[in-house]
């Protein structure tokens, strides 16, 4: 890093800016709050771009490091590696879009709404940037409060149930992780995440610690069978809430696996590979089937999220480069694509105020622009080559196959099922005849909506055509992770086994 850049506490500014703006929003009028939120998220995005440029993929593992002791065993310690960098970029990229998506849709209590979103942004960046175990936990859990308020205040008719379910489910998962963290800190005498990433816990303790962390990340990701909060939360949350939930909050689970479970407990992770593969396999197949029969658009996309997260866990626990890089790309891609799909739902919901699939049909006639973009995102979700979905899912499947043939077979059926439910959804909404007069009267995308969806479309294509831009920053870090977990890598069942040829029987005689 060049001196001048590393002098500035870039990450603190990145976190502090939305925090301050969020407080300021509470005291201004609705339109001022909208503009404040938009401007601040855009400034943060610009700062993030500067961070991206300043990040040196070949440099030190941790860059932009800051550390201030608060006493009592907690430090304001921030720093990012490539993995954190790309996830922070995803957050920063989605935030202005969320604000834009709420521009018209949210009419009541706008200042509080914008404040909650800005607070959310600060906490999410904090999760990815934290280098202190307790600081991480505070950011990780802190996100519950704004999301609880977003679902509960601005959500749909069943919002109260959904907000409780979201809060209590996630809290229950996370508190067990806290105990594990306390154990680790007492055992290793440090709260520093980088230090813990190279600390070797006894394999027997790793087993329990891994399970405690699983409880938290499995709920957050979510993995089957603890995914049931997700459809409710998605359906009830306002559009922007769904975007941020699917786009970033779910990624915290995957990030947790890659930052904590794998490097801190390699043996523990290896021990539970069969469990993770089983759960992921069920997630991919079962939730895809469930998605197939949904009548609510948001619910369908929510279940598809669970299925896609199955690819993430498959890839992460494959213990090889393709798998882990693939999982990262699936996370980024899903963050963009599912966010975009929720925005697409939001577009028609704002016009017709229903998410019932049957109420639409034939929209490609009266909304050609919408149909075009929606198709792009549908294809990306299915994993069409040329879109981001393909890169991630392909890498993740290759990685999985290198460890387990069976897991790869199950995972691949998920791709077929994914194509089935997404294409069927698209067909029912955009093709066919215009059956309903009110749906036929809907105008095409407005300029604002183009501005929301076009950047995501560009990013999806970029990631699909030239994934190197996103793989380069994480390559060195995945390499370090692989070195760390090499000793525990499970045995593969799909590689050819080299043996000496049998001598023919006749010759023996």
């Amino acid at each position: 890093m060049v001196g001048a850049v590393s002098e500035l506490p870039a990450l603190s500014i990145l976190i502090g800016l939305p925090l301050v703006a969020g407080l300021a929003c509470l005291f201004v009028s609705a339109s001022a709050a909208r503009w404040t939120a938009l401007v601040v998220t855009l400034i943060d995005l610009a700062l993030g771009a500067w961070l991206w440029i300043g990040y040196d993929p070949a440099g030190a593992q941790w860059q932009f490091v800051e550390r201030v002791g608060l006493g009592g065993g907690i430090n304001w310690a921030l720093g990012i590696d490539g993995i954190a960098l790309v996830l922070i970029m995803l957050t920063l990229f989605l935030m202005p879009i969320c604000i834009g998506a709420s521009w018209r849709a949210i009419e009541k209590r706008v200042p509080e709404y914008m404040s909650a979103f800005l607070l959310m942004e600060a906490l999410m960046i904090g999760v990815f940037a934290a280098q202190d175990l307790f600081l991480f936990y505070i950011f990780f859990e802190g996100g519950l409060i704004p999301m609880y308020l977003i679902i509960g205040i601005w959500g749909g008719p069943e919002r109260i149930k959904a907000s409780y379910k979201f809060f209590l489910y996630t809290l229950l998962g996370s508190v067990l992780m806290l105990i594990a963290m306390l154990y680790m800190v007492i055992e290793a005498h440090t709260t520093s995440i980088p230090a813990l990433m190279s600390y070797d816990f006894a394999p027997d303790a790793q087993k329990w610690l891994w399970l405690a962390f699983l409880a938290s990340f499995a709920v957050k990701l979510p993995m089957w069978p603890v995914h049931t909060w997700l459809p409710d939360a998605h359906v009830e949350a306002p559009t922007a809430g769904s975007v941020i939930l699917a786009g970033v909050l779910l990624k915290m689970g995957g990030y947790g696996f890659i930052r904590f479970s794998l490097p801190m407990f390699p043996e523990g992770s290896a021990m539970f590979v069969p469990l993770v593969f089983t759960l992921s396999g069920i997630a991919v197949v079962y939730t895809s089937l469930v998605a197939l029969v949904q009548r609510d658009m948001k619910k369908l996309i929510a279940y598809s999220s669970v299925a896609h997260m199955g690819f993430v866990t498959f890839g992460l626990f494959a213990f090889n480069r393709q798998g882990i890089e693939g999982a990262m790309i699936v996370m980024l891609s899903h963050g963009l694509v599912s966010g975009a799909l929720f925005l697409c739902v939001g577009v028609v919901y704002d016009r017709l105020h229903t998410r019932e699939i049957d109420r639409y049909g034939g929209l490609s006639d009266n909304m050609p622009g919408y149909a075009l973009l929606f198709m792009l995102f549908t294809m990306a979700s299915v994993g069409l080559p040329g879109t981001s979905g393909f890169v991630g899912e392909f890498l993740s499947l290759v990685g999985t196959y290198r460890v387990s043939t069976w897991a790869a077979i199950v995972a691949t059926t998920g791709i077929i099922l994914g194509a089935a439910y997404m294409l069927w959804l698209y067909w029912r909404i955009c093709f066919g005849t215009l059956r309903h007069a009110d749906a036929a009267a809907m105008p095409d995308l407005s300029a604002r909506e183009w501005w929301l969806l076009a950047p995501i479309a560009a990013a999806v294509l970029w990631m699909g055509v030239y994934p190197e831009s996103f793989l380069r920053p994480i390559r060195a870090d995945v390499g370090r992770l692989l070195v760390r977990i090499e000793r525990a890598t499970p045995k593969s069942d799909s590689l050819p086994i080299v043996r000496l040829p049998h001598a023919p029987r006749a010759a023996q005689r």
Partner: protein
Amino acid sequence: MNRLMPILPELILTVGALVLMMVAAFTGRRASGLTSWSAVALLVAACFALIGAPSNAGPLFGGLIAADAFGAFGKVIIFLASAVAIVAAHGWFERGTEHASEYSVLILFSAVGGAVMVSATNLMTLYIGLELTSLSSYVLASYRRGDERSAEAGLKYFVLGALASGILLYGISLLYGFTGTMAFPGIAAAFARETTHSIGLLFGLVFLLAGIAFKVSAVPFHMWTPDVYEGAPTPVTALFASAPKVAAVLLATRVCLDALGPAIDAWRQIVIFAALASILLGAVAAWGQTNIKRLLAYSSINNVGFALIGLAAGGAKGASSVLFYMAVYVVMTLGAFLCVLRMRGKDGEPVEAIDSLTGLSQARPAFAAAMAIFMFSLAGVPPLFGFWPKLLVFRAAVDAGLVALAVAGILGTVVGAYYYLRIVKIMYFDEAKSPLVRVRAPVERFLILAAALAVSPLGYLLIGELGRLSDRAAGSIF
């Protein structure tokens, strides 16, 4: 004179309270404003008087009390909480008819009792301190004697409190009989001498702890809490939930770790049971409450359970986590009660129904935000500061090898989170119009703001300093 310096804070309060009582006797109700502000001044002066000898002089008067950092830590909390209870009452009671000067005098006596409790190193002084606090509390609970509920609260508190005092005294007499001493070091030595404790000693220990459990309102001796908290005038409830509770928890800490230190295996199981039962019952019983004061009563039972986890962990770390916990707990609880004090109906009458908070976030966003901060903080949800003391008690428990206890306790926080969330839900998610009206109370507003800022994420800046203070205080009893 020098021998009296270490008890200067208690002297200030005692003499001041006696003078104020005279003033009250001669001026009647006219001087209620004067007496309450002088009482606040006395309490603040007593805090400053703690600097120096009163916090490091060691054992005094032949080991009856000890002037150490542990006691000083507790006294600061007790005095400040008492001062807040006096300030809060100022705008609450109907001036001239109800708000007599005796109120402040009683709180001063209660504070002196609390100060004796936290520095007692002899069962006799322990009992005297406890009774001084309790007697003042009984009167304070029934302070609105025209109000049936208040009278009932006072009577209930008195009858059950007297029973608990009896149990405690019985325990003390057994311990005295079997050890031959009332001094904590002597009792500790007696316990250390025997490898298997005699039945008599164990009985004494159990009765002593049962009596103390009543005072800290730990399950299964919590029955009085909801009724008394509901019936007592709200400023008095705020006091009950803070100063005497801190005094009792700190007293329990000193008794367990000092006098009963060598018998840790005997009392740990009792404390663990009380802790888990309090957490669970405090959380579950609060679910269906419709009265905010009852809800906060269960919340205080729940919170005492967490403090007791730190006590069960034992050692300097456990004691330090208890002190830290109680310091933050008092701020959160007083903040919540100050908010309750500002819940007024159309004619300025106090409202206690939880339903009346409906939709408050629209009519009075700042009030609702403060209440929400206290609720989330009491629930221990980060990034609010209420999370950190919970983390400290769990850390102490894991450090002491009580991982199962920590897991059970932390699952209890999730159960408890439900009812705190309910308050937030009622204020933020429900649409109806709140019947509450605004009351002018600048001092309380300032106090609420200060408390809310202290438990906001800004509180984390205090971790270092507060941690050092509680560590030093905890270190002084070993």
